[in-house]
């Protein structure tokens, strides 16, 4: 251990663990401070670019969705994660599971196509129904709308992971938890100095 040295004069009040968070920041020069912020921005940007990249590759505006209800049991359960694609040339056939949005509503719905009308030029009108529902989805469509069209489709299910989506459901049901988690993660990245 180092030899004795004079006790510190005028060091000020002792700091608790909370103040040490900013101790690292205080010792930084302008460049290092900017690097901390940049580091945070890079992490956010990377996540964003991965998501946008998935959107471009799959052609779907929401390539990963969470099943919110039990209307497709036993195929899908609440909390399952679905992976979608929305390729322009994919034909939609009866029996396939599609994710669609009703005009004017934000929340996508995951149901099965049960009826299709198709014209020669490829335009289609189709009807959907949840496997676990008694009736078809006409009650969910817009006032006066009896059929869905290609433009309403967010994508078709290509794969799924069970249960993983429960985290999203919990975070939406308890938004304070979500903000708290994001705040802690953000603070950690911003304040902890990278070597």
């Amino acid at each position, binding site marked *: *251990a*180092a030899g004795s040295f004079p006790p510190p004069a005028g060091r000020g009040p002792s700091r608790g663990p909370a103040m*040490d968070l900013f101790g690292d920041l205080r*010792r930084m020069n302008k460049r290092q401070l900017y690097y901390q912020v940049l580091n945070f921005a890079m992490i956010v*940007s990377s996540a964003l670019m991965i998501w*946008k990249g998935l959107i*471009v590759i799959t052609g779907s*505006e929401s390539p990963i969705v969470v099943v919110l209800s039990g209307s497709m049991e036993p195929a899908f359960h609440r909390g399952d994660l679905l992976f979608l694609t929305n390729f322009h040339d994919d034909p939609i056939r009866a029996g396939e599971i599609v994710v669609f949005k009703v005009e004017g509503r934000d929340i996508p719905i995951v149901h099965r196509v049960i009826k299709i009308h198709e014209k020669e030029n490829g335009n289609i009108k189709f009807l959907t129904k949840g496997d676990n529902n008694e009736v078809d989805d006409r009650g969910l469509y817009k006032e006066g709308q009896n059929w869905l069209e290609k433009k309403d489709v967010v994508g078709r299910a290509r794969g799924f992971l069970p249960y993983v989506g429960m985290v999203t459901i919990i975070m939406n049901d308890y938004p304070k938890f979500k903000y708290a988690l994001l705040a802690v993660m953000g603070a950690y990245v911003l304040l902890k*100095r990278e070597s």
Partner: protein
Amino acid sequence: QWKIDDKPVKIDKWDGSAVKNSLDDSAKKVLLEKYKYVENFRLIDGRLIICTISCLFAIVALIWDYLHPFPESKPVLAFCVVSYPLHMFIFLVAHRKDPAGMDPDDVWQLSSSLKRFDDKYTLKLTFISGKTKQQREAEFTKSIAKFFDNNGTLVMEAYEPEVSKLHDSLALERKTK
């Protein structure tokens, strides 16, 4: 006696990364304040700029997609998504070009290592002559207990001589060659 920022550096002695950072910073200060060298910010600034540009690509993608919703934004999105990871490749190229050393100045490089949960700190000083482009290095490995007291304060009286010894051994070699 000179001190960093006129105040002794006090960190949590059990926090490995804080220990390493304070030793690294102090070694740098010795070179900058005692030997009056000037820090070369070129490489660091270059990285900062490249990363900032990458973030700009991400911001452009975000805003464009918001104003012109997908699928109209597809080409712009695709461009940004592909451009964003380029910063990683630019770093590789820059790193390989750097040792070419195009300045006539002498270059001193510091590097260090401190393994997780270990107490052995290694500081390596490299001297690259501006004229001959030859490289010489010196290093020491010491326990961090030699430099910090029980409260986690860095004792410069113990650390600074070690750093100076490294520097002087390389500077002396230069004169005798």
